[in-house]
């Protein structure tokens, strides 16, 4: 049974509708990649799942989010609060700013254990130090007493991961966890997350704009464009047979070793801002296969059990190198 079942989730800010009927399902022990360019609504999805939309002046305007048989949409705040940090945890994009600069990092991890697991200060501290050690932070007892500004970005992000794990959650939502880090560190952090999922049987929603990361780490993929799902499938299938033109373009953009100079591909145009979406299929202004019908409404087709694609001309491409 799916741990997380998102069904037609829509998010509104004022009169705008930045997320429109997003659907996906995630089981324990699996990693779901949520891909899209900036402005596609990825972070909003994360906030919606955590129930933090009011903090940015947004609200769920439709749909349902079921977390292990509990309906999260409309859940009373006190109940939601007991879930956050305990059964579902968030890792945000910028470790530079997601830690409280005035507190030692250890205390910030301990806080979770003390709040949700009823640990004593000493027990929480021991547990945090152990967590840091598991995340391959050398000399974790010393690091526990340090302040955020005394650490590198990669270390900070591991602390944030530790904070997420301290409540022993079942679901982790990682919103672009490596975007703000050096390239060399990125692979390490992704590997840490993958290992955690496999070892502890967690479910992970990995939000990223990098198809390369998706290929490396994820089991299933949801491709977002302008607030709607363009395509979703297992990772092997989507790379083998990308069906939506946007997915195909994204995959074509991944740089390959040995590529001829000057042959890097991009996608013409820019992601539209909320409020200036095209009618019908929101991708059609940038799509090579656009036809007049694309300005009419776009249905979601279900071709197979795990494969969904939203395009009038869905045509799987051959395998890509």
């Amino acid at each position, binding site marked *: 049974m799916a741990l997380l079942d998102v069904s037609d989730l829509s998010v509104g800010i004022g009169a705008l509708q930045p997320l429109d009927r997003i659907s996906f399902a995630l089981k324990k022990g699996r990693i779901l990649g949520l891909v899209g360019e900036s402005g596609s609504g990825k972070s909003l999805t994360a906030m919606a799942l*955590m129930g*933090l939309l009011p*903090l940015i002046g947004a609200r769920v305007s439709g749909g349902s989010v079921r977390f292990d048989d509990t309906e999260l949409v409309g859940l009373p705040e006190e109940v939601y*609060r*007991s*879930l*956050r*940090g*305990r059964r579902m*945890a*968030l890792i*945000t994009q*910028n470790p530079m*700013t*997601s*830690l*409280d*600069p*005035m507190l030692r990092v250890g205390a910030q991890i301990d*806080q*979770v254990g003390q*709040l*949700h697991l009823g640990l004593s200060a000493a027990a929480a501290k021991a547990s945090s130090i152990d967590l840091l050690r598991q995340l391959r932070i050398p000399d974790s007892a010393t690091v526990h007493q340090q*302040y955020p*500004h005394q650490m590198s970005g990669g270390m900070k992000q591991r602390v*944030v991961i530790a*904070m997420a794990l301290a*409540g022993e959650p079942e679901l982790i939502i990682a919103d672009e966890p490596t975007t703000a880090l050096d390239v060399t560190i990125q692979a390490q952090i992704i590997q840490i997350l993958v290992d955690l999922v496999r070892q502890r049987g967690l479910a992970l929603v990995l939000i990223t704009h990098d198809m390369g990361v998706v290929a490396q780490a994820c089991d299933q993929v949801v491709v977002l464009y302008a607030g709607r799902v363009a395509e979703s499938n297992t990772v092997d299938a989507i790379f083998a047979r990308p069906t939506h033109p946007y997915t195909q373009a994204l995959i074509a953009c991944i740089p390959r070793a040995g590529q001829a100079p000057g042959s890097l591909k991009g996608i013409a145009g820019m992601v539209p801002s909320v409020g200036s979406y095209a009618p019908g299929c929101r991708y059609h202004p940038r799509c090579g296969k656009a036809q007049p019908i694309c300005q009419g409404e776009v249905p979601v087709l279900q071709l197979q059990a795990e494969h969904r694609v939203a395009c009038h001309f869905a045509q799987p491409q051959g395998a890509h190198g």
Partner: protein
Amino acid sequence: MLNYCAKRLLLLVPVFLAVSVVIFMIIHLVPGDPIDNMIQIGSSPEQKAALIARYGLDQPLLLQYSVWLRNLFTGDLGDAIIMRRPVFELIAENLPHSLRLGSLAFIFSTVVGIATGALAAVFKDSWIDRSVMALILLGSTLPSFWLGLLMILLFAVQLEWFPVSGARTWTALVLPVLTIGLHGVALVSRVTRAAMLDVGRRDFVLMLHAKGLSHRRIQLQHVLRHALLPVVTILSLRIGWIVGGAVTIEFVFARPGLGSLLITSLAQRDYPVVQGCLLMLAMAVMLGTLLGDMVQAAMDPRVRDSLR
């Protein structure tokens, strides 16, 4: 922490020296013979000679400065020309009044300022917020001495609730403290409000919510602590304004204190007193700033590392 305090104290020395040089030079920059500026008209040659010996007035300037400095540390600040008393005595008499006024005004500003600023932030855009903003505008733009005079006119003259001037009763403290304090409240309130709103928007606050902490706990245990930082910064940078405000308001309310002493002696050209008062007031500013810096260092680990 101790490291920081030691270094910070060390920094005080050159600052003090620089300020003391400027104050020392006043007597020599003013038109007229320094000797005449330090002694009453019609003094006998013996008295002048005694003065010269005491302050080394026949020596080169640098030596004179060192003599002056040495005298300072032994409590010899010279003698007042008009009142014919040691400056040290005059200052010792007036200092407690100024201290009382200054510290009360400071406490009043800080407490009321933080409270109103926090309220305005929590109830943003409500009538509470708008009233506080209006108060801030008034407090920061109205000249303090006018405010003082208004207070006197309204509360002392018309309503007769408080004495018009002087320092005979404790009620005489109310209006002066309010006058100085209002300006401070405006400053602290504005900074507190802005800081709380600003901090509330930061990423780590989002993370605190994501960890499952309650809104109230987040505001009180985390946001407020952060918001206090800019408040302390502003207060420690602007601690001087209390000194400035006290000087003005003491004069307006005709209260005894270093401020009125300074003004009257300036008008009377009683330079030894002027120097003594300026020195004391400057020390007050420097010590206040030092204290503020140390409090900041205690609150924010990043500050402690800044003097490495």
